[in-house]
C-alpha cells in the first residue's frame, strides 16, 4: 500500500526487512496512575522504505521505537519483523538512540565493535569495524575515547556502531538533534547515501519537518499523547532532494498545519 506510486519506484535491495505494527497501544504506570502513551497505532512499512515519524514532544515517539527494538512489550497489539513477532531485541533491528550513549570506557574502535563482540563474531569480522569507522569519516579517531570527541563525532560513532551490524531495520531516534545545522545537513546526505547503498528499512524520529521531507519516502504525523496516526504522507521526489523544492515546501506547510503550527508559517 505504500511506495506504490513513488516517482523513484525504487527496486529496493533485498536487505531491508518488512515491519508491521498492528494495533499497538502502550501505557506507563506513574504513581499508581496509568499514562496512555500509544493508542492503537497501526503502520505497515515495506522492506527498504524510509519512514519518518513526526509528532509533538512527549507524544510517544521514542516509546514506539523502543517497542520496535523489542526493549519493551506493548500492552496491546503486535509488532512483526518479516512476519515474525518481535518479542525481544535482536541485532537485525538496531537503534541509534536520542543520546549517542557511547561507552566511555571503550575507544571509538571498541565502541563500534560492540555489536560484533556481543554476538561473538568479532574475531573473524574485524574489517567490518574498520569499514564502518571509515564510512563515518573517523578513521583518525579510532583510538580516541568518547570524552575526546565532539558531539557530532559522537553521533557519527553511534551511527557506525549501528551500521556495522548490517541491520535489516535501522531505527533512528533524533540522531541529528544535537548537531549544528552544517554538520546536520552533511550527516543527512550521508544517511541517505548509506540507506540507498545498503537498502535497509529505516524508521526515523525527528522533530524537524524539513529533515523528514529531505530524507523520507513517507512521513507519519502523530497526534498529541496518547499518540495516534494523524496523517500518512508519501513524499514523491527523487534523491538528492533540494530544500528549496516548492513541492516539499507545500508538504511542509501541510504538515506544520497538522502539527498545529499554521500561524508560524
Amino acid at each position, binding site marked *: 500500500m505504500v511506495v506504490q506510486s513513488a516517482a523513484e519506484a525504487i527496486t529496493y535491495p533485498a536487505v531491508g526487512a518488512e515491519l508491521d505494527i498492528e494495533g499497538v497501544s502502550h501505557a506507563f504506570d506513574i504513581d499508581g496512575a496509568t499514562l496512555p502513551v500509544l493508542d492503537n497505532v497501526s503502520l505497515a512499512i515495506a522492506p527498504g522504505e524510509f519512514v519518518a515519524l513526526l509528532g509533538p514532544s512527549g507524544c510517544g515517539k521514542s516509546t514506539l521505537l523502543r517497542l520496535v*527494538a523489542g526493549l519493551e512489550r506493548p500492552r496491546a497489539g503486535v509488532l512483526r519483523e518479516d512476519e515474525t513477532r518481535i518479542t525481544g531485541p535482536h541485532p537485525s533491528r538496531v537503534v541509534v538512540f536520542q543520546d549517542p550513549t557511547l561507552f566511555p*570506557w571503550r*575507544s571509538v574502535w571498541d565502541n563500534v565493535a560492540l555489536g560484533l563482540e556481543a554476538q561473538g563474531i568479532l574475531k573473524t569480522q574485524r574489517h567490518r569495524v574498520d569499514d564502518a569507522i571509515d564510512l563515518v569519516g573517523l578513521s583518525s579517531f579510532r583510538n580516541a575515547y568518547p*570524552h575526546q570527541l565532539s558531539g557530532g563525532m559522537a553521533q557519527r560513532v553511534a551511527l557506525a556502531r549501528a551500521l556495522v551490524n548490517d541491520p535489516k531495520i535501522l531505527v533512528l531516534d533524533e540522531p541529528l538533534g544535537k548537531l549544528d545545522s552544517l554538520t546536520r545537513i552533511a550527516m543527512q546526505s550521508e544517511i541517505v547515501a548509506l540507506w540507498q547503498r545498503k537498502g535497509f528499512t529505516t524508521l526515523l524520529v525527528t522533530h524537524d519537518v524539513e529533515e523528514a521531507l529531505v530524507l523520507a519516502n513517507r512521513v507519519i504525523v502523530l497526534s498529541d499523547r496518547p499518540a495516534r496516526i494523524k496523517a500518512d504522507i508519501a513524499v514523491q521526489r527523487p534523491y538528492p532532494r533540494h530544500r528549496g523544492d516548492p513541492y516539499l515546501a507545500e508538504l511542509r506547510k501541510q504538515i506544520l498545519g497538522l502539527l498545529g503550527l499554521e500561524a508560524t508559517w
Partner: protein
Amino acid sequence: MSTYSVSDAAAAPAPRAAVTLSNLSGSYGIGLAASLAWLAFGLSCLYWPDVGDWSRTDSLGIGAIVIAAFVLFGTFGADYLGGPGEALRKRAPWLVALGALFTLWEVATAKFAWLPLPFFPPPQSILEVYTDDLPKLLDSVFASVKLQLGGYIIGATIGFVTGVSIGWSQKAGYWIHPVLRFIGPLPATAWLPIAFFSFPSSWSASTFLIALATGFPVTVLTWSGVASVSSAYYDVARTLGAKPSFLVLKVAIPAALPHVFVGLFMGLGSSFAVLVVAEMIGVKAGLGWYLQWAQGWAAYANMYAALIVMSLLCSGAITLLFRTRDRLLVWQKGVVKW
C-alpha cells in the same frame, strides 16, 4: 611599528647555562642552599662530641657530606645530566628543608640533649637500627607484606564478587543485603577476640580480619557502582545482541570500576589498621609486632625505624593502587593524581 625582525631574534645569544648572579638566586641558589644544609648536617655530626654512646655518628656525618657533594655537582651539572638533573632541581627546596631539619634534630638530641633522650633518639641511632638490626626488620617486613597481601586479595575478591551479585541480582540482594547491613559497619577489630579463639592459627584469624576490613567497603561501593549504571547502556548492548553474561562482564563491571576503586582505597586504609592491631595482639611477627617488642624494651630508635618503614610500605601500596587505577581508567578525565 615594531623594530624587531627575524634576524634580530636569531642573532640574540641563546641563554646557555652560565652561572650568573641572577640564576645564583634562582635554581642554582636553591641547589647551593641544599648542599650547604646537608654539609651543615654532616659537620654537626662530626664537630661536637655525642652526649651518648652511638656507633654510627661518624658514618652518618660522612654520608651527609657525600650527599652534600652530590647535590652540589648535580646542581651545577644539571644541564648535562638530563632527567636526574631535572629531578634534583625540582626537589631542591625539599632537600634544603630536610637538611635543615636533620641538622636541628642532630643538634637537639645527640649533641646537646635539649629533647629528653631515650624518647627522642638521634638520627644515628635510627641508622644503627637499619644496619645492625636489619635481618629482624626484614623478616618483619616480609611477614607483614605476606599477611596484608593475602588478606587484602581475598577480601577484595570476595567483596567485588559479592558487590556485583547484589548489584545485579535481586535474589542475591534479598539475602546478602541484610547480612551486610548487620555485620558490615562493625569495625573488624571488634572480631579480634572471637577470631583468635575460633581460627586454627593466629595467622588465619588475622587474614580473616584483614579480608573482612577490606571486603565491606569494596562490596558496598561495587554494589552502588553496579546499581548506578545507566540503563541506557544496557539498552544499547541489548539491541546489539548482548547476552546477560556480556551485560555483566562488559557493561556493568567496567561502568562500575571507578566506584570499585574508591572501595579498594577505603579497604586498603582500614585493613592497614587491622593488620597492625592483629600483629600487636596475636601474630608473633610483622612490623606491628616489632613495634610492640621495641616498646617492651624501651628501644625507641627501633620504634621510629619501624614506623618509617611502615609508612613507606603503606604509601607504596597506595601508590601502586593509584597506578593500577590510572592504567585501567585512562578513559576517565580529570582523575586525581597521587
